[in-house]
C-alpha cells in the first residue's frame, strides 16, 4: 500500500464515520459535527493528492483546503444560528421533532 492509499483510506473512513453520524443521530448539533467531519475528510484528500500528485508547486490542493475551511467556518456559524433559532421556536433541537413546515 502506498502512502497515498493510506491517506485516502483514512479519509474514506473519516468520511464514512461522519456520514454515519450525520444520518443516525437525532441531535441537530451532532449532524453539524458529522458534516464538519466529512468536510475534513475531503480536505485530507485534497492535501494527500497535492502532496503525492505530479504538480505540488501549483498549490491548488492547499488553496482548495484553505477556501473550504473558510466555508466550513461560515457553514458552522450559520448552522448553529439555525439550531439556536429552532430551539427558540420549538424548545427542542431534536431533528425527529422538527419535521413540520408550519412553525
Amino acid at each position: 500500500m502506498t502512502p497515498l492509499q493510506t491517506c485516502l483510506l483514512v479519509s474514506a473512513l473519516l468520511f464514512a464515520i461522519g456520514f454515519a453520524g450525520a444520518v443516525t443521530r437525532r441531535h441537530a448539533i451532532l449532524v453539524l459535527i458529522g458534516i464538519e467531519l466529512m468536510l475534513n475528510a475531503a480536505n485530507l484528500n485534497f492535501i494527500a493528492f497535492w502532496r503525492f500528485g505530479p504538480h505540488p508547486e501549483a498549490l491548488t490542493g492547499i488553496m482548495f483546503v484553505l477556501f473550504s475551511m473558510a466555508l466550513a467556518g461560515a457553514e458552522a456559524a450559520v448552522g448553529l444560528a439555525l439550531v439556536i433559532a429552532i430551539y427558540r421556536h420549538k424548545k427542542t433541537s431534536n431533528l425527529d421533532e422538527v419535521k413540520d413546515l408550519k412553525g
Partner: protein
Amino acid sequence: MSSFFIITGVVTLLGAAFAMSLRNLVHCALAMAIAFSGVAALYLQLAAQFVGFAEILVYVGAIAILIVFAILLTRSGEAPEQSVLTSGWLAGIAVSALVFTVLGWAVLNSSAIPRQTSPAPVVTVKNIGDALMTKFVLPLEIIGLVLTIALIGAVLIALKEGSQSKADDEGLKMKKPSSSPSIPGSQFSTGGRP
C-alpha cells in the same frame, strides 16, 4: 509511511468515532476537537504546515468553541434519557458502510493513483500569499463576501425577533426548574425539555 502517521490516523479516527457515538453532547464536541487536532497533525506530516496550523486555528480554536456554545445555549449539556439515534439508524449505518466499502475498493484498485512517492514539496508562506494574491484572487474575494454574508445572516437568524421572541423569553423565565433527577448545581440540564 511512518508509524507516527498510522498512530495519528488511528487517533483521528477514534476521535471521530467517539464524536459520533457518545451520548453526552459535550463529550462529542471534545472528541471532535481531538479528531480535528489529529487531522491537523496529518496535514503537518503531509508537509502542509500552513494548512495544519490553520486547521487548528479554525477548527479547534473557533468551530469547537462555537459548537460548545451552541450546546449550552440549547440546553443539551446532559445525556438525554431517550434514544439518541434516529428511527432509521440501521439503514444509515448500512449506507455509510456501503460508502466506505466502495471508496476503499476504489482506492485500493484504482489505476489512476500514482505509485511512486515524490519528495515532500517545500511551500513557504510567501508562496501561498503570492498565489492567493495572483492566481486565486477572485476566490479570495468571493470567500470574503461569503464570510461577511454568513456573519450577517447568522446574527440575523439568531437575533431575537420582536414581540414573539419576547413571549418566548417570558416562557423561558416562567418555566420552573426541572424536577427530574438532574445533578444539583447544573444550570444546563435537559430536564425542562418537552
